[in-house]
């Protein structure tokens, strides 16, 4: 149901549009009880129905990476997502620069106020609205103190993307480490680590995130930090927030990695590696992790889409990113009262949040299809009929034979 925007506690089963993946993951014991049954059913299905025959031909002579890439590029939604996300990233980096490197846009300092031009209305003109295409001085308009809104939104986009990446990376490192250790060693270690995971899962992410966001805000005051330290903390707020949020979002990933490892460690190639004298570290990193990588990558991607909305929600509640940093959620929170008079202050950041989250979701969906050997491209009815017609045209006798 809910995404992290609106919090109701979700036990920790994987959430979101892709929730179907973990239909029964609310308890690891039960999930693992169920897993062999499901696996048996699907394996049976794959061989028994003669499916996958055409598949073998399709993937003949290709490496795993090539197959995945081809499948990913075939997924139209994923391609759309990839292109949109790249375009947004490129646009924000080109216009606002990256870190110390200055961008090309004329208003680099988004905190600077300026004179209102034309009541702060957007100067962007699109061809279909009449008057031809024009970017103008302030394409997205100006906010209430006259700062250029395009600069603000682009900085916000950068913050969102940055938080998304750092959060995904942090969550991946923690989740995969904990999941693989407890799946590989089982026993007491598994027990302790999984109870720790349960502990973190118990609370809704939004709640923990809000408390931690508040913590980041209060710490410099409590420690009587000097002005310079405070400035440094403020400047690195997005980084800190992303790391902190990553430290609470890893739980689902840990559970998935664990269940993946539990089944992988029973496989023959792991036994043979062990017999050949490989160390635990080598078995985990060289033999098991690459086999679990598909699941991990897909779920990290989906985690990132959650991260975008979560960061926006926290900033909206005022427990996330604070000025002078800019974030899309913060822009919406600051300007929600101005909707009736200056709606563009509200439209632009919302539009970019949606575009980013949507693209990442589609990329995740495409990746899942690409890594899942069970998905096949199903031709549409129209394509089937067309193929049948072509076949009939090429070889009428055979078609008649078939029709009989």
């Amino acid at each position, binding site marked *: 149901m809910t*995404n992290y925007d*609106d919090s109701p506690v979700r036990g920790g*089963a994987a959430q979101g549009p892709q929730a179907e993946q973990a239909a*029964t993951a609310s308890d690891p014991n039960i999930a693992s009880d169920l897993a062999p049954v499901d696996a048996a059913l699907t394996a049976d299905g794959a061989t028994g129905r003669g499916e996958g025959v055409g598949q073998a031909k399709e993937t003949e002579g290709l490496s795993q990476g090539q197959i995945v890439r081809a499948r990913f590029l075939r997924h139209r939604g994923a391609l759309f997502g990839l292109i949109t996300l790249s375009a947004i990233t490129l646009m924000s980096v080109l216009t606002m620069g990256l870190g110390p490197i200055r961008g090309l846009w004329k208003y680099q300092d988004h905190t600077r106020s300026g004179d209102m031009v034309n009541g702060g209305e957007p100067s962007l003109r699109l061809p279909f609205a009449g008057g031809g295409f024009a970017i103008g001085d302030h394409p997205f308009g100006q906010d209430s103190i006259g700062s250029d809104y395009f600069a603000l939104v682009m900085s916000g986009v950068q913050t969102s993307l940055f938080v998304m990446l750092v959060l995904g990376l942090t969550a991946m490192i923690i989740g995969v480490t904990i999941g693989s250790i407890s799946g590989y060693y089982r026993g007491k270690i598994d027990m302790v680590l999984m109870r720790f995971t349960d502990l973190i899962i118990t609370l809704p992410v939004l709640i923990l995130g809000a408390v931690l966001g508040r913590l980041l805000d209060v710490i410099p005051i409590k420690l009587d930090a000097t002005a310079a330290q405070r400035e440094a903390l403020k400047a690195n707020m997005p980084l800190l927030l992303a790391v902190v949020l990553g430290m609470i979002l890893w739980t689902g990933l840990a559970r998935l990695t664990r269940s993946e490892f539990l089944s992988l460690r029973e496989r023959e190639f792991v036994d043979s590696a062990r017999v050949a004298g490989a160390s635990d570290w080598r078995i985990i990193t060289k033999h098991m992790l690459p086999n679990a990588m598909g699941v991990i990558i897909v779920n990290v991607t989906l985690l990132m889409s959650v991260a975008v909305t979560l960061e926006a929600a926290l900033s909206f*509640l005022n427990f996330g990113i604070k000025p002078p940093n800019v974030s899309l959620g913060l822009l919406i929170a600051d300007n*929600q009262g101005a909707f009736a008079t200056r709606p563009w202050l509200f439209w632009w950041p919302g539009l970019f949040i949606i575009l980013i989250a949507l693209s990442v979701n589609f990329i995740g969906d495409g990746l899942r299809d690409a890594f899942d050997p069970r998905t096949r491209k199903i031709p549409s009815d129209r394509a089937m009929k067309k193929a049948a017609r072509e076949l009939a045209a090429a070889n009428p006798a055979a078609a008649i034979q078939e029709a009989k």
Partner: protein
Amino acid sequence: MLKFLARRLGLALGILFVLSILMYLLLDVALDPLDDLRTNPSPNRPVMIANRVAMLELDQPVWVRYLHWLGRFVQGNFGMAWRSGQPVNAILSTAIPTSIQLVFASTVIAILLGVTIGVVSALRQYTAFDYAITFVSFLMYSLPIFWVAVLLKQFLAIGLNDYINEPTINWMIVGGVALVSGLFWVGAIGGEPRKKLMVFVCAFAATFGVLAYALLSGWVQHPSIGIIGVSLMALATAFVVSVLFAGLNNRRALGAALTAAVVGIGAWYGCQWLFFYVEMSMLWMLGLLVLAIAVGALIGWLWGGPDRAVSMRGAVIVSIVVSVLVFIDRVFQGWQQYSQMGTIRGRPIATIGAETPGLGGDFWITQLDRFTHLLLPTIALVLISFATYTRYQRGAMLEVMNQDYIRTARSKGLPERLVIVRHALRNALMPLASIVPVDFIAMIGGAVITETIFSWAGMGRMFVTSLAQSEVDPIMVYVMITGGLAMVANLIADFLYAVIDPRIRVDA
């Protein structure tokens, strides 16, 4: 089974205990109760600080404070929101019902809508309809709720209120809605091009007609259902339920459903007298609902036949729907009086709060007031949350439709309706057992952002304000309640799953 339950409960208590310690330590760092005094220019600042330190026992080490808190908590005294001086128990007694009110309707609607659309989308896999639903659900999933809420306030609430005061009909929008509805039904029903065209024309005309009637006849200004509306909808429900769950060939099931509908229509007259002479309450409503369910079951039982359960189920569903219709009809009868009340000022659709302060009026007016306040947050929550159910149910249904027993059912010549409803749907609904309890129990924790935007004084809002004002007690109670309920919910989910799915053994 008992051993399993005991072990899980013990574990849950242990986790909650550890959680309370960690949370208390974390909050001790994250909250700064002295923040407003540090910058206070008044000369007696040290005295004020000393007073507050004494009040909040800040001179004690944190573990002493934790033990004090734990002692009070175990005895059921949840402490104090010290900035306002309100005891937390008092806040909770209003906040919990408010949150449940807010989230109950939207959770139910989101589940029903999401599951239905998910199933249909799976049955039409790889069609334009399926792709459109997938896209829409991804879009919904990416929407930030605070953004949607502001849009709803701006367009829906203000637009509707303006329309009620000064009706001007925008035919473009009416046509657009009718077009979307036509396309939706074409995609959902499918079939040959001829059938598709017919479905499209019918759906388009029906939607357009209903909307035009509602707008032109002034229905929007004075919404009502009336006995005609109740009758039509009751009979339609009876037919739809019979077609879906029994098939029109099962005359007994159809008879039972229709009887239930007719009895319900008769009960409408009785209820008007009852509602007029007796002051109603929520308890009365629940009692009447239970009575209606019992009557429905009895009707189904009397129609009987070899497949008695099917008739009973159909009749019960119809009687529930009719009861809800009668209730809504009576609530709408107060509309005229409500919209002209002084406190409403002619703008009945509310944008903030859970009720109009100082409204007065009887039970029905209060219910209507609740409706108008629930409208916007419910729409926002449903929009955001139904997408997950759609995706989830689509996945589950696809999984089931590929199983061998579906092939068997088809090959022995069962009609497609039976294959889908009896063989596929029942199995595809099983995974819901693991998410529905979690969602239902989670709603007591409230929807943090929705409550903040719409100014509902529920649990989520209590958390947000207390966190901003550095009040530790309300936050701790909130954390303990949401944490405890999450554990209970997961326990129920596992238990339900074990009961439904024989492949799972919990004793192992």
